[in-house]
């Protein structure tokens, strides 16, 4: 079980809250696509998955992968299939923006082998989309998702809650709209003010009110309740799925499976180390033209591996499985957990630690409390 991620670092315009790596100039798209193919070849040699390990998921993320032409998309898929052992039933996800969707493109994507769409809706309200500086309109959001639904079963949409302008009522309506469109998977993110984003500057300049943590937790609590009542399983902090529609690709991240990320800024993981490519399109292209993957690597110590496990697993509905944790560590972990169990934020059951709904609001602090320390 392994995954391949491809980062397509281009966007039509910059959303104010976004801190992903992307460029709004499409000038070097052909060179970048070529470089990605070269990287796929090199990565397969340099970071081979263990023999017999097939690639079960491919994920085109970004940036905006829906800016790829059919030819480019096909080239990339061919390269990945050519260099890696891709399972014929692999989940192949394409992130798309509503403004790029049309009947024609939907057909293209389907015919190219894409079997899951992740649509960057963010909101069904025009005012919201405008201050976010999204490229699409509320009307497009509604109509294009509807259209996409005719061609794809397996669809997820992104929604953002807790923003300064979004009322409780509007948030409820966003969720109802998603349900009405019969979307089987939702990624719902609390608006996060990342450093060095236009949003951050706007807040500091007083042009936009700062996010209100009380509103965010209200929206989150509502979301959890709503999901339960409407048949969505809350399987990760920000992810909700109807039965059978969990994202296999993202689930692999959370289960600690290996993955290779291709493209500028993409991250890879082999169970013991993480490495990531340079976050600069030009430098990335130049380096691959020279036949080198421009990456930096970090080896994880045993403690770091364990801490990542704690941090990630607690975010999932499956929880942290204690059965693989050595007994000494397990005792220590349970001791640290007790305070949070008493506070009703954690439950220990069936040899697993899971967050309660209240606990999910405080997941970071709780994880930090359970972390182990490097022995010096």
């Amino acid at each position, binding site marked *: 079980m392994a995954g391949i991620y491809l980062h397509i670092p281009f966007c039509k315009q910059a959303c104010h809250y976004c801190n992903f790596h992307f460029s709004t100039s499409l000038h070097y798209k052909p060179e970048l696509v070529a470089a990605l193919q070269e990287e796929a070849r090199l990565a397969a040699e340099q970071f081979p998955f263990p023999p017999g390990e097939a690639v079960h998921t491919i994920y085109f993320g970004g940036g905006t992968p829906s800016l790829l032409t059919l030819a480019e998309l096909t080239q990339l898929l061919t390269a990945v299939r050519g260099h890696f052992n891709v399972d014929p039933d692999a989940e192949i996800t394409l992130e798309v923006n509503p403004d790029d969707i049309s009947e024609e493109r939907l057909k293209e994507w389907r015919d190219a082998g894409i079997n899951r769409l992740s649509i960057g809706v963010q909101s069904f309200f025009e005012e919201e989309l405008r201050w976010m500086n999204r490229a699409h309109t509320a009307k497009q959001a509604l109509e294009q998702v509807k259209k996409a639904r005719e061609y794809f079963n397996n669809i997820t949409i992104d929604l953002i809650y807790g923003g300064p302008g979004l009322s409780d009522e509007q948030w409820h309506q966003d969720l109802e709209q998603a349900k009405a469109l019969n979307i089987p998977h939702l990624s719902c993110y*609390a608006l996060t003010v990342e450093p060095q984003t236009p949003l951050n500057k706007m807040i500091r300049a007083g042009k936009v009110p700062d996010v209100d943590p009380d509103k*965010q*937790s209200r929206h*989150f609590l509502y979301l959890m309740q709503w999901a339960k009542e409407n048949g969505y399983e809350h399987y990760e902090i*920000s992810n909700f799925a109807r039965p059978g529609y969990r994202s296999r690709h993202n689930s692999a991240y959370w289960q600690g499976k290996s993955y290779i990320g291709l493209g500028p800024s993409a991250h890879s*993981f082999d169970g013991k180390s993480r490495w990531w490519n340079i976050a600069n399109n030009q430098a990335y292209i130049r380096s691959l033209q020279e036949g080198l993957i421009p990456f930096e690597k970090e080896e994880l110590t045993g403690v770091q591996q364990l801490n990542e496990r704690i941090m990630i697993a607690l975010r999932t509905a499956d929880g942290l499985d204690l059965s693989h944790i050595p007994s000494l560590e397990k005792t220590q972990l349970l001791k640290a957990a007790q305070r949070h169990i008493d506070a009703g934020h954690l439950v220990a059951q069936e040899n697993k630690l899971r967050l309660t709904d209240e606990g999910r*609001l405080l*997941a970071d602090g709780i994880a*930090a409390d359970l972390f182990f320390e490097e022995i010096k």
Partner: protein
Amino acid sequence: MKNIRNFCIIAHIDHGKSTLADRLLQSTNTISDREMMDQVLDDMDLEREKGITIKSHAIQINYRHTDGQEFILNLIDTPGHVDFSYEVSRALAACEGALLLVDATQGIQAQTISNLYLAIENDLEIIPVINKIDMDGAMIEEVQDQIIELIGCKPEDILLASGRTGLGIEGVLAAIVDRIPAPKGDPEAPLQALIFDSVFNSFRGIIVYYRIQNGTIRKGDKVRFVSTGQDYEADEVGILKLKMTEKKEVKAGDVGYIITGIKNAKEVKVGDTITLSNRPTKEPIKGFEEVKPMVFAGIYPVNTDEFEELRDCMDKLQLNDASLTYELETSQALGFGFRCGFLGMLHMEIIQERLEREFNQTVITTVPNVSFIAYTTKGEKVMVNNPSEFPDPVKTERIEEPYIRAQIITKPEYIGNIMTLCLGKRGILINQSYLTTTRVELIFEMPLTEIVFDFYDKLKSQTRGYASFDYHAIGYRDALISKMDILLNGEKVDALSALIHRSRAEDFGRKLCEKLKELLPRQQFQIAIQAAIGAKVVARENISAMRKDVTAKCYGGDISRKRKLLEKQKEGKKRMRQIGNVEVPQEAFLAVLKLDD
């Protein structure tokens, strides 16, 4: 011995002592160009970061005089900041002469005068040097007049130099040899060596620095520390170059080091005399005056179970800082720790920093206070160094607080600002005099508690740096002092209690609550912060419960960034102390010092 000179460099802070020392070392090839850097003797990280000297530093120079004779010069560079004046006074005891530096652009400042008097008390030959004459603002003649006025020397006795350019350095070296007397003493007499400093080294154990008055120390000698009566073998003796340099023997008149098998830091006392076991001296050398701490604060390990380790580190640190005093104390909130006496707030900060950097301790320093005297209705007199010792007001007749005499030298245009500042701090103007037409000296009597915390910073900002300041204690006077308690969720936190003048108490309580609200992290429940005098709550703040602490996205690229963030958060928590159910960060205990930020 006639070819030895022992001297130190003294001055007001920043007048260029360490830089001048650089030039002396460089021009005599004591330090190679490869080893040379600015203020090379400031070898502690903290000294380099802060750009000031904290410890005196001894180093030996070989110098060929203009007449061709070879001389050994033992130089001690000293700190200029008031908080480290004990370092200066010990250095003086190892010397026969002192270079008194005066910055040509600043003229005589408060610590120029106080350090000069220290040197005169020690019978040192003073060589006045006007330094930084390369600077545009140098006022050589004016400063010459000031010096003549102050020490009554002749104009031609005053040297001119620049530590930056090296100008005048040859003249300084020649004057050291010509004007400072050679040490007296008899290398054949019974050994008398004065311990003026020591340091703990994790490889070598305890290293002791001394100045020999009489006799000779040889490698392998059996030596005795007079005050403890303990005998040791001299495993290694030597002199201080940039590094320690081993010698077979060190003789009368010289400054050197000795390494013995001493394990226990308590056995070494600065001011003690070293002699030979088989031929002991009859009279130990008169040691140093005991230090009088100005400020007291508690130092506690963040983790209660690290107390023993902290004790060991305090002992070791004290080897290298004889001005640090401490005794055991317990706090309900913090457990076992030490009540420490410091010479000032900078000293306190340096001690905390050194414990963390050199000894890897994570400590909490509690609210500092001066020491008060309480007279009880039963007729007892109680020294109060700690708010928890503050007696019940109904059983207290009166309280006295320490006063100081403050000397401020400034330009006439700042008199108004300084008056406002000092009167606001309960100061009384005692004397005001013009030193020259452009320099005024103001003398105030003020409560010590008003100046130890932020006075110096305020003074600097009120005078754009054109004021220097020195003070000394002048005894105790009546005071109206109250004890202010802080309660977190109803629980009194003794480590946050402060002793405060009654007229300021309410305002202080309000500000302290506000500051704590800023410094305490939100927790999963509400926190009530209250300030109270006795049973009366004078201020209150609430910190509402944390509602949300969860990152939205955790995909491939987010994971390691996220883990590092949480690890850091966890590391931060280690610097917090759990009091009741509230986690209190290290810096909250010093909130009092930042009330005006």
